[in-house]
């Protein structure tokens, strides 16, 4: 909400600079988002009167003007505006002025004629885009007056952020009350006196109209007055300036007055053309099914019984609390006005305004809550202003239907509780002062010491409990004045969190192995499953849809991390970054569960890319090595790798990691079809693990194993076997034959090619022999090694490669 300081000052005095006031309001919880000095840059601009004009001797398009700006002598100003005339009032930028548009006014000679200032257009003053001619000012202004004063621009506008709990601050009076809490200054309410003075006419309102509330649950109060014989016209300048300063456009005097009072009291009002109401009466009721109304914005809207309307005898004439109807609006021909001041149920207004996507100053306030007690004073204030500005007479009496009247709320407040909650030592006097300045009634409780019975003012709908009062005291006391202490209570002992530990181990391992961490949105495009070649019946395709997605790309919850990582690979490749090594840890969304997963991708090039460590394409065993590392850091052993038919992967180059019966992850080369879908011109490798399952299997207890004291002996072994032999079979034989002497087996070379016969491959191992109890002799090792060779030959047909 915008607040004009000039306007605000008509209700309460304060000596703060705009910045100071902004700071104080902010620290009271009314955050000031901006401070705007309206006339900034126009300080050197004054009202001038063109006393005489004469042609420029040397230029056809220029005119010499003698301009009175209230000084002894007129100024000569050379001007080229087409609309200048003798006697015109226009703004004059005096010498030395730096205009908001950046122009600095200097003494100048234009084609040989002196010019002592500039007559300005609205555009040159940055007031509008109008550059067609000089800005014409009212001839009622006094010459030499600062333009900011003349236009009401000597004002500062604060833009306030009012939190949803404080609708009482959505008015000048509301903000004034906050300043009263801060300063203790009194608020000057406008004088409203209708009764008994001559503006109230003879006609009794009860004779010419009536108000019926059919649905009092949605309308606690409805009041109306009728003003007859008004003259609808443009508003006087002061009304327009007030409204414009807070960003409300002027329409006509009647509507402008309702807006003026809205800003003043926070009470939305509506003016109907009395004669356009069927039977000239008001019925507040729910809309009927399929009823329609054309609102002021000339949109025809369909209504239903959830919506409250203001109707006449026949049809809806306003969407209650949201917007008036087009057919009953005030026009130039309006003679008699029925003025509405009412209170509506917040939830009802909220749903109606939401359903129609119609958010107005009125609905904004009603859906947050408006003081039901302000209805009459706002109505009277507006009626009085209408008579003052638009003439006419007010019918005798007011219609005030008030089925929702409530007793003022009383709350017990204990001083000790205030200090208990806040950690302060606030005294009784401060509590009394604060609450009374905020408009609360205070009575000491009869039975309890330092305890009060607080009466809540009708405008503070947000205050219903003791804790709410404590907040009021806290904010006026100043949060900064509350001590800063450390908690005194016990620190609870946290339970061991194995899942977190597993996560950290895996993450540290992946980071240390050179993979970058990615974080992706949880939403993906529904076509992602097709892109990773999953059939519709694949369990991962059962994804939850968003009801209101931002875009198709973000319309379902991901059940797998793989599409996101492939998208990342594609994005990077499209930007010529091809050394792709990324992983992500995140939960996914499957059947109402949110299993935590870790997945990664290697693609394009790996390696340092510097001499001695050139780039090379990754292969299956790079991703396998990473998978093995993940399992190793979690202490998981005894798992198997089994080929699967997961469609995302190359059918001959993938494997699921299985522990007992449980699949804990899958690794493999990305299927060429998937690569094509992601427009990747190189191979890519994925791993994808279930962190929960790793957690279940993880073993972190470690026991010391003695460091070998006897020396070990190494033997290399190169064998030629069938090409399709799985490399774990020779491993197995070496292990079982070598027995406990085999400390480690390292496969250091795999070769297929010219050096071996067709259909064969060579595998080269280094076997380390070691005994925990003796120094092994060469002979003993050779015997054991020979046995291994014999068994490899007998069982796998392996030939020693020389």
């Amino acid at each position: 909400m915008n607040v004009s300081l000039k306007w605000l000052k008509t209700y309460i005095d304060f000596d703060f600079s705009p910045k100071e006031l902004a700071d104080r309001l902010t620290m009271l919880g009314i955050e000031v988002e901006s401070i705007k000095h309206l006339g900034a840059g126009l300080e050197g601009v004054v009202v001038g009167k063109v006393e005489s004009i004469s042609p420029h001797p040397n230029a056809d398009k220029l005119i010499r003007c003698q301009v009175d700006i209230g000084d002894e002598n007129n100024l000569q100003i050379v001007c080229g505006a087409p609309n200048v005339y003798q006697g015109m009032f226009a703004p004059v930028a005096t010498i030395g002025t730096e205009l908001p548009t950046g122009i600095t006014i200097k003494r100048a000679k234009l084609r040989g004629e002196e010019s002592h200032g500039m007559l300005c257009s609205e555009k040159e003053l940055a007031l509008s885009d109008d550059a067609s001619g000089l800005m014409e000012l009212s001839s009622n202004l006094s010459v030499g007056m600062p333009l900011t004063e003349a236009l009401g621009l000597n004002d500062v506008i604060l833009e306030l952020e009012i939190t949803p709990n404080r609708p009482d601050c959505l008015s000048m009076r509301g903000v004034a009350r906050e300043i009263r809490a801060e300063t203790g200054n009194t608020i000057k309410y406008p004088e409203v006196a209708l009764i008994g003075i001559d503006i109230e006419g003879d006609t009794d309102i009860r004779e010419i109209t009536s108000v019926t509330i059919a649905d009092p649950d949605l309308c606690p109060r409805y009041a109306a007055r009728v003003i007859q014989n008004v003259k609808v016209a443009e508003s006087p300048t002061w009304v327009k300036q007030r409204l414009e300063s807070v960003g409300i456009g002027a329409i006509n005097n009647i509507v402008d007055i309702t807006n003026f009072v809205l800003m003043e009291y926070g009470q939305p009002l509506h003016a109907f053309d009395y004669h356009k109401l069927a039977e000239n009466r008001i019925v507040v009721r729910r809309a009927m099914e399929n009823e329609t109304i054309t609102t002021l914005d000339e949109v025809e809207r369909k209504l239903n019984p959830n919506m409250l309307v203001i109707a006449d005898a026949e049809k809806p004439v306003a969407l209650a609390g949201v917007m008036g109807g087009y057919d009953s609006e005030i026009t130039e021909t309006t003679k008699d006005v029925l003025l509405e001041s009412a209170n509506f149920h917040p939830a009802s207004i909220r749903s109606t305004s939401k359903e129609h996507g119609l958010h107005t100053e009125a609905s904004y306030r009603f859906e947050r809550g408006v003081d039901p007690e302000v209805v009459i004073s706002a109505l009277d204030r507006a009626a009085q202003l209408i008579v003052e500005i638009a003439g006419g007479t007010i019918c005798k009496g007011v219609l005030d239907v008030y089925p929702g009247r409530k007793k003022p709320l009383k709350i017990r407040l204990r001083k000790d509780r205030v200090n208990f909650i806040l950690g302060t030592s606030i005294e009784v006097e401060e509590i009394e002062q604060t609450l009374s300045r905020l408009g609360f009634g205070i009575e000491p409780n009869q039975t309890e010491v330092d305890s009060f019975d607080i009466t809540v003012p009708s405008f503070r709908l947000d205050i219903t409990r003791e804790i709410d009062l404590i907040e009021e005291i806290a904010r006026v006391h100043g949060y900064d004045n509350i001590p800063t202490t450390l908690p005194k209570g016990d620190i609870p002992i946290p339970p061991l969190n194995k899942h977190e530990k597993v996560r950290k181990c895996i993450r540290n391992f992946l980071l240390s192995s050179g993979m970058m961490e990615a974080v992706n949105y949880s939403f993906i495009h529904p076509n992602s499953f097709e892109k990773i070649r999953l059939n519709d019946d694949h369990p991962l395709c059962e994804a939850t849809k968003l009801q209101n997605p931002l875009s198709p790309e973000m319309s379902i919850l991901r059940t797998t991390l793989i599409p996101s990582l492939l998208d990342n690979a594609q994005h990077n490749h499209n930007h010529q970054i091809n050394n792709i090594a990324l992983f992500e840890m995140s939960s996914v969304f499957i059947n109402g569960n949110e299993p935590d997963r870790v997945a990664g991708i290697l693609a394009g090039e790996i390696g340092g890319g510097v001499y001695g460590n050139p780039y090379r394409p990754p292969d299956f065993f790079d991703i396998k090595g990473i998978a093995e590392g993940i399992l190793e850091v979690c202490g998981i052993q005894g798992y198997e790798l089994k080929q699967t038919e997961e469609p995302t992967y190359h059918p001959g180059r993938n494997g699921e990691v299985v522990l007992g019966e449980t699949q804990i992850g899958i690794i493999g080369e990305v299927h060429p079809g998937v690569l094509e879908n992601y427009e990747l011109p190189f191979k890519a490798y994925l791993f994808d693990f279930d962190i929960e399952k790793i957690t279940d299997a993880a073993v972190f207890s470690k026991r010391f194993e003695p460091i070998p004291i006897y020396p070990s002996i190494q033997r290399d072994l190169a064998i030629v076997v069938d090409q399709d032999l799985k490399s774990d079979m020779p491993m197995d034989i070496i292990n079982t034959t070598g027995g406990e002497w085999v400390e480690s087996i390292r496969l250091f070379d795999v070769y297929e090619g010219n050096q071996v016969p067709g259909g064969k491959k060579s595998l080269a191992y280094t076997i380390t022999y070691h005994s925990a109890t003796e120094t092994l002799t060469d002979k003993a090792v050779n015997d054991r090694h020979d046995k291994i060779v014999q068994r490899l030959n007998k069982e796998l047909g392996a030939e020693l490669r020389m």
Partner: protein
Amino acid sequence: MKAELESIQTEVLEQLKEITSPDDLETLRITYFGRNGKLTDIMKGMGKLSKEERPIVGKFANDVRATLTDAFEKTKKELEIRKQKQQLTGETIDITLPGRKPAYGKAHPVIQTLERIETIFTQMGFQTVTGPEVETEHYNFDALNTPPDHPARDLHDTFYLTDGKLLRTHTSPVQIRIMESQKPPLRIIVPGKAYRVDYDVSHTPMFHQVEGLLVDKHVTFSELKGVLVSFARQMFGDQTQMRFRPHFFPFTEPSAEADITCTVCQGKGCRTCGYTGWVEILGAGAVDPEVFKAVNYDPEEITGFAFGMGVERIANLQFRIPDIRTFYENDLRFLKQF
């Protein structure tokens, strides 16, 4: 004979000075010490000496031999050092060539920030807990004192799912879940993802939050200030000032927003802070009694405070990324910067 020995000693020592290669040294050694070497010859002549002379000359001869042997050894070492030096000089490399850095990955900048926040609170005794991202209206709103028609719901533009559930708009529902299952005292933080329908340079539809909750028999607003001020000092530096402004959250009362001195201008005022010198970093407040009632705690007896902060926002105070959507593009040129 003695004279002869003396002259050989002088002669050899002179010649050694001229030696420049191990080969020359060996030749010289053979010339004197070899089977037919000059010194060997003289030693052979020892037998001709008288019985009285023999021990005297013998001793002298041994001294000469020892002196010369030492001299040879010394020269040999010098030659070796010289040779090694020469060799090493020849092995000079261009030390300005690039180093071979072992590959290492980097954590995502948002996660880095999240971990820093987590560490600070862990040191203050807060335990990390997590909860589901798909939530019910009950946990995300109702139990947090935000009934369906509450205007505060407008502050959270919510993603709804087709099954009637929603994506949590904050990590606060976990507060409720924890309080339902545990008794005070509680000191928890809840890091995690949250979602709101928002997509512009300063908003992403998914973002990270860290929620904190401290509940005990007598927790005060002043302790909330204490915990958050010490957090801010550790996170942003010792000089950081923090101010608390009244604000509104449905599930805390009194509620506050906390600002820290602008990290760009140190509080002097700049564009980042809108010339106020302050930047908002979190929301907080004393737990609202209604929330305690929803989890069957007695609000007369139990008090507490909660706070919540946006991780991207805090990360960006440091990184100053003009469009925070960049965080989730996972462009490697971006990720490698942090």
